[in-house]
């Protein structure tokens, strides 16, 4: 029919062929016949031929070439639709030979008068790129050109091409940024989504963070992916008045109306933009729109709920008003139900928990058993999160044990087990009840849980436990593997506590286990037998068997499964899947230094903008925190404007610790003086000595504060400078001099490097690149603390003398303070705490904590004392003596002791004044639960030898070699944990020792440098949990530079 002369016959034939394609049948043998019709006058036939061509051209490349000339002709057609579709088809034919033709066509089309054709050109770019990535450079040129296009039609497509071809060429966006922001509202909806996602990434690289620490406190929000040091940095930033870049503001403002879009994807895109780049206070408006999307289809609901779940973990307040929108309907699909449940759990707090629990009760009865089980878990999580309702929840769960449905009962058992483990109060009754249940429950997990519980608490239920074991011994062979393991455990535990009654039973069970089919069980049996049954061969371990089996086990944390999702950008596929999808582009962290905003200026306004000093930047380098002194100093000598104050304060510091280093710093000044005016130098010297005096006379804290302020920002320190010396402050602001001095500094730097620690060389070079010398003086020095820097400095002092460490003196005390009570929530009373790392005077199992109380009100605060304490079992607090009154603007430091029982559980108590009581918490970082220990290398190795196997945890660290200098490692380790240094004979092994405060268990830490840039971190300790937590904390610190 295709050969027919009549169009209608041809059309009919083509329709049939397309039908075949649609059904997935192979129609490739018709290729020659079809291609002939490509030049048909009938537009419908032509279109269908196009469809066919695109589908099969790849398979029949030679024949496909026949059609190319038709397209080339069509590209010149006066009808824009035909031009565009010719380009579309041409670029869709995946035949490598025609790449040059395509390239030419794209170039021409990108200059076409019709925006529709240009839009198609943008699409063609992606197609060509996927066909032949070698064309990248040429294509980028075209993209650059199309980005300048003012048509809203083109914008979306070209940004899409940009994302596909060269997402890292952020420099192409600069000039078009404002235009894109302004056009955004008029771009078609699909383009909006792409542009918003791109701009989010852009904003994260180009603007400084608008998030202030205050916000973080208010909504309990922490960016989990940001490690400690970055948070410190935030603290630093807070000190400077934050002004949002007008371009940043422009983006936020222009996207706001799009929240009203009917397209869910657009709303979600704007929501994630607000979430990721707007100030926390403004992000609130997204919640209403997101909740609106929940009215939409099931699939949209699913994605939106997932994103809300992630958001609600970090910021409850956002969705709390919409709590009821997340109530579950019986008609919802199961996946929606579970997501809603997740969100409800995240939103639960003291105020709404009672309504929620009532709601949960109806869910538990649901016919959807999977959902009912999920609800039970949820109740468990609520119970742990909100201590007020723990008992209520527990009782409710116990009631469920008599439920008829097995799944429900099993789930309740598992949750009750977790809850009981968390607070092993006298719940003997519940345990007995559960023991009875063993007869009826068949779900393995539940059976295993019950057995474990009985084993753990075998001393509390002395009568029942052996009986249970007897029953289990009978049924051992028929049990699930999971249950068998727990039977073995139970037997071992009972044998240790009550061997009289259970000896034979245990023997019997061990014999059964020995011949089990599962090797895991055989292994376990052998292990237990060796461990508990005394025989002549048994090693030293059997003495500790009781300790091993009946050690206090830390309660499991019931965490949201969405906890770890937040490192993915919201609204992305990766976030939905919680794995990195192909082509996922990381959202970078905020830069500490805003890149020059003037790059976004379009030519016309360039002149006006140039007057504004380029770097209104918040200057602080991300990587700088943990570097050793050398760069710190280099950095300071880097920008001439503030070098004096920096080195001054520093040398003051150093002078404190050792004569040597003060000499060092003055020599540094000498080198400076070469390049700078003599007068200045004198002044510096003078100040230098002054500060030294100061530091001698005053107590440490004040001095710290001073150096902190000067360190926290060069700009600030220079403003302090200004007050004292006017001559140089003038010179500061002039950029000319600055640039000159920069040159000088470079020279100087070389010099400094020579007399400095040779290790710092490469770092300093890196550092210089990032460094932004232009900093406008900020006139508001805020005398607040920047703990990290001072911590660094202090660490350095001592690192020089680290080889002589006396018993239990902290190597280094980080001055990092934690907020106990924010002044906003404490009605003007602010409290901070920090760990002085001194042995506690109140009791040797306690960790000493220093609390600084500030009165920020204008009235006296009277009778500050500690009220009601809510402590986990075993934890103790030695309170400070009540403070009679605190003057306005006054501050007082008190110390108290807390016995954390070697766990990182939170100590909650009430801080009371005459009128109010505030609930506060102290959660110790794991590193503070230690006391340093001095020991020799030999002792260390001996102890380490005894703490192998289960007591050893290790990990591999990969980082740049410059992070592996002894001083850097030392500093990083002691910053995290209160450990003592063990002198080491080998250069590549660093050892640290400490003991836990409560139980005095040894904690041995080894950092072994390997070839290349890896190192192994090993922790040996009896307290494996603390050990692994410490390991987790140390790993990121050591691996980043």
């Amino acid at each position, binding site marked *: 029919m295709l050969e027919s002369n009549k169009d*209608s016959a041809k059309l009919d034939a083509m*329709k049939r062929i*397309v*039908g075949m*394609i*649609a059904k*997935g049948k192979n129609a490739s043998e018709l290729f020659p016949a079809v291609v002939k019709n490509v030049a048909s006058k*009938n537009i*419908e036939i032509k*279109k269908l031929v196009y*469809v066919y061509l695109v589908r099969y051209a*790849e398979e029949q490349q030679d024949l496909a070439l026949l059609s190319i000339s038709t397209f080339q002709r069509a590209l010149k057609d006066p*009808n824009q*639709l*035909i031009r*565009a579709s010719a380009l*579309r088809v041409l670029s869709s034919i995946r035949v490598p030979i025609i790449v040059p033709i395509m390239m030419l066509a794209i170039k021409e089309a990108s200059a076409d008068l019709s925006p*529709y054709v240009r839009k198609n050109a943008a699409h*063609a770019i*992606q197609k060509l790129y996927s066909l032949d990535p070698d064309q990248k450079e040429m294509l980028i040129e075209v993209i650059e050109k199309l980005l300048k296009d003012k048509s809203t039609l083109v914008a979306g497509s070209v940004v899409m091409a940009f994302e596909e071809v060269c997402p890292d060429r952020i420099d192409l966006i600069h000039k078009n940024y404002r235009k894109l922001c302004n056009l955004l509202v008029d771009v078609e*909806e*699909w383009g909006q*989504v792409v542009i918003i996602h791109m701009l989010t990434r852009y904003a994260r690289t180009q603007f400084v963070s608008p998030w202030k620490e205050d916000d973080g406190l208010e909504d309990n929000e922490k960016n989990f992916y940001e490690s400690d040091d970055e948070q410190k940095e935030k603290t630093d930033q807070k000190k400077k008045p934050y002004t949002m870049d007008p371009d940043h503001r422009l983006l936020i403002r222009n996207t706001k*109306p799009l929240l*009203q879009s*009917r*397209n*869910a*994807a657009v709303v*979600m*895109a704007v929501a994630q933009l607000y979430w990721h780049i707007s100030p926390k206070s403004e992000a609130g408006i997204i919640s*209403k*729109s997101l*909740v*609106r999307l929940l009215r939409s*289809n*099931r*699939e*949209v609901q699913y*994605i*939106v709920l997932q994103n809300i779940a992630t958001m609600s973990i970090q910021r409850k307040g956002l969705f709390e*008003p919409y709590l009821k*929108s997340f*109530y579950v309907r*019986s*008609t919802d699909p*199961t996946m929606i139900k579970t997501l809603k449940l997740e969100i409800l759990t995240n939103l639960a707090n003291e105020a709404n928990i009672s309504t929620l629990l009532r*709601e949960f009760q*109806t869910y538990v009865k649901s*016919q959807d058993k999977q959902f009912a089980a999920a609800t039970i878990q949820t109740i468990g999580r609520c119970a742990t999160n909100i201590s007020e309702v723990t008992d209520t929840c527990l009782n409710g769960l116990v009631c469920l044990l008599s*439920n*008829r449905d097995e799944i429900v009962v099993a789930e309740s058992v598992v949750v009750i087990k977790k809850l009981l483990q968390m607070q092993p109060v006298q719940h003997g009754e519940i345990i007995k009840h559960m023991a009875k249940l063993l007869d009826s429950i068949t779900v393995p997990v539940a059976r295993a849980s019950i057995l474990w519980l009985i084993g753990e608490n075998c001393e509390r239920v002395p009568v029942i436990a052996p009986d249970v074991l007897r029953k289990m011994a009978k049924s051992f062979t028929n049990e699930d593997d999971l249950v068998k393991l727990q039977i073995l455990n139970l037997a071992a535990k009972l044998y240790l506590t009550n061997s009289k009654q259970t000896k034979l039973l245990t023997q019997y069970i061990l014999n059964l286990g020995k011949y089990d089919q599962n090797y895991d069980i055989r292994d376990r049996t052998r292990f237990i037998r060796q461990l508990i049954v005394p025989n002549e061969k048994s090693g030293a371990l059997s003495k500790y068997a009781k300790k091993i089996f009946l050690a206090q086990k830390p309660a499991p944390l019931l965490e949201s499964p969405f906890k770890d999702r937040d490192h993915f950008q919201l*609204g*992305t*596929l*990766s976030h939905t*899947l919680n*794995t990195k*999808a192909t*082509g996922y582009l990381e959202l970078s962290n905020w830069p500490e230094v805003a890149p020059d905003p003037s790059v976004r200026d379009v030519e016309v306004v360039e002149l006006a903008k140039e007057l504004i000093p380029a770097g209104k930047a918040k200057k602080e380098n991300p990587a700088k925190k943990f570097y050793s002194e050398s760069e710190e100093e280099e950095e300071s000598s880097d920008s001439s404007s503030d070098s004096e104050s920096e080195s001054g304060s520093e040398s003051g510091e150093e002078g404190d610790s050792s004569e040597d280093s003060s000499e060092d710093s003055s020599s540094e000044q000498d080198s400076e003086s070469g390049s700078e005016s003599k007068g200045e130098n004198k002044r510096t010297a003078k100040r230098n000595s002054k500060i030294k005096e100061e530091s001698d006379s005053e107590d440490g804290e004040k001095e710290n504060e001073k150096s902190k302020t000067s360190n926290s920002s060069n700009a600030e320190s220079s403003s302090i400078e200004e007050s004292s010396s006017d001559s140089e402050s003038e010179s500061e602001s002039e950029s000319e001099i600055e640039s000159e001095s920069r040159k000088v500094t470079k020279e100087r730097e070389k010099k400094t490097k020579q007399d400095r620690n040779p290790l710092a060389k490469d770092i300093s070079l890196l550092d210089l690149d990032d460094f932004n010398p232009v900093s406008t003086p900020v006139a508001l020095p805020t005398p607040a603390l920047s703990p990290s820097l001072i911590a660094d400095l202090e660490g350095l002092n001592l690192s020089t003398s680290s080889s002589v460490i006396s018993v239990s003196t902290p190597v280094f005390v980080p001055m990092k303070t934690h907020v106990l009570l924010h002044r906003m929530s404490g009605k003007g009373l602010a409290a901070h705490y920090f760990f002085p790392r001194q042995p506690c005077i109140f009791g040797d199992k306690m960790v000493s904590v220093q609390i600084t109380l500030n009165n920020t009100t204008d009235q006296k605060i009277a009778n500050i004392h500690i009220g009601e304490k809510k402590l986990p079992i075993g934890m103790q607090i030695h309170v400070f003596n009540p403070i009679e009154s605190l003057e306005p603007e006054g501050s007082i430091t008190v110390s108290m002791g807390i016995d954390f029982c070697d766990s990182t559980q939170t100590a909650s108590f009430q801080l009371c004044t005459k009128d109010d009581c505030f609930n506060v918490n102290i959660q110790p970082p794991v590193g503070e639960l230690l006391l340093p220990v001095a020991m020799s290398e030999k002792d260390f190795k001996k102890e380490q030898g005894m703490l192998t196997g289960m007591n050893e945890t290790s990990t591999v660290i990969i980082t740049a070699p410059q992070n592996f200098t002894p001083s850097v490692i030392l500093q990083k380790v002691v910053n995290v944990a209160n450990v003592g240094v063990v002198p080491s004979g080998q250069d590549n092994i660093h050892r640290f020792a400490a003991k836990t405060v409560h139980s005095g268990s040894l904690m041995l830490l080894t950092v072994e440098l390997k070839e290349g840039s890896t190192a192994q971190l090993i922790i040996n300790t009896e307290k494996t949990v603390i050990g692994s937590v410490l390991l987790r904390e140390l790993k990121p610190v050591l691996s980043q530079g």
Partner: protein
Amino acid sequence: MIHSLFLINSSGDIFLEKHWKSVVSRSVCDYFFEAQERATEAENVPPVIPTPHHYLLSVYRHKIFFVAVIQTEVPPLFVIEFLHRVVDTFQDYFGVCSEPVIKDNVVVVYEVLEEMLDNGFPLATESNILKELIKPPTILRTVVNTITGSTNVGDQLPTGQLSVVPWRRTGVKYTNNEAYFDVIEEIDAIIDKSGSTITAEIQGVIDSCVKLTGMPDLTLSFMNPRLLDDVSFHPCVRFKRWESERILSFIPPDGNFRLLSYHVSAQNLVAIPVYVKHNISFRDSSSLGRFEITVGPKQTMGKTIEGVIVTSQMPKGVLNMSLTPSQGTHTFDPVTKMLSWDVGKINPQKLPSLKGTVSLQAGASKPDENPTINLQFKIQQLAISGLKVNRLDMYGEKYKPFKGIKYMTKAGKFQVRT
């Protein structure tokens, strides 16, 4: 972006496939079938399924799965929203979107899909533009085409595509110029056992049918715009004007479209127009249970409640039900255990009720929970939130259009727990 699209019917056959980039073998759908099997119910198939090399994003509508295959990171909502748009377009083109209809019109479907996506990126999704590019099939047109040999493919670029109002085509002409607006409100509610409201919300939409000649510029104002708490607009609505004056000002698309959807602020108490009295009880000993439901009007503002349908998913242990309604008809499907009672109008003088017994499977234990009751109803000429349109004006054209506004209240997700 979107690599390929597969249409899969409920029995698991791929009946249409379309590729925008290189061809993806249909074997990729095996992963989808696997997930489908695991989910047991179509509703529970996860919308996003990762496979080793591709990601499958699917929507389920009209008993058809629309499965999009993508290869790289893309906002999932982007794809899902697009797929829904595809379904809407099909519905718009063919009236219904079902497997036989799509199979019959496979060429048009193919042409439309070709225009909607280029290289996986949406090109034209406004149905007004699409209809100009590819004319929807009508009987008349098919006849004309076969005689004259003309085609249903437009050969000119739709002007809307380039203009600032891409949703409207040019050169629209009508003899009767008319504009209708339907204000439809839905009540979402959960009512607990004792009859008190747990949550209730009102969601509303204004659906419009505008058939006006030329380029009319309309404004629509409300008596009480403050009621609207959260709104989302058709792109034609000028956002600035709404922000400042609370007036909807827009150049309408031609034909049917959704002008606005809104949410009534939560502070306002929602009037619940119906109540359900229920008495469902199972006894432990016997295999028979009692079942009784009565539906009655509550705050209806004097309007009658029509189209009442009561559905309830009975527990699995229920074998059969023998019930007698005082009005309407009822059915019980013993396989899905779904009870449905079509009540019709509620007469306040004689309340409809459904009474009878439930027989449980022999040996099955008494279900722990009574079934929830879902309710559907309609109330004509009433917007339950009290929203009222003040006036509608037209600028830009000379003629006088016929204007009409209709109000309606419906039950959305209205659930009574028993």
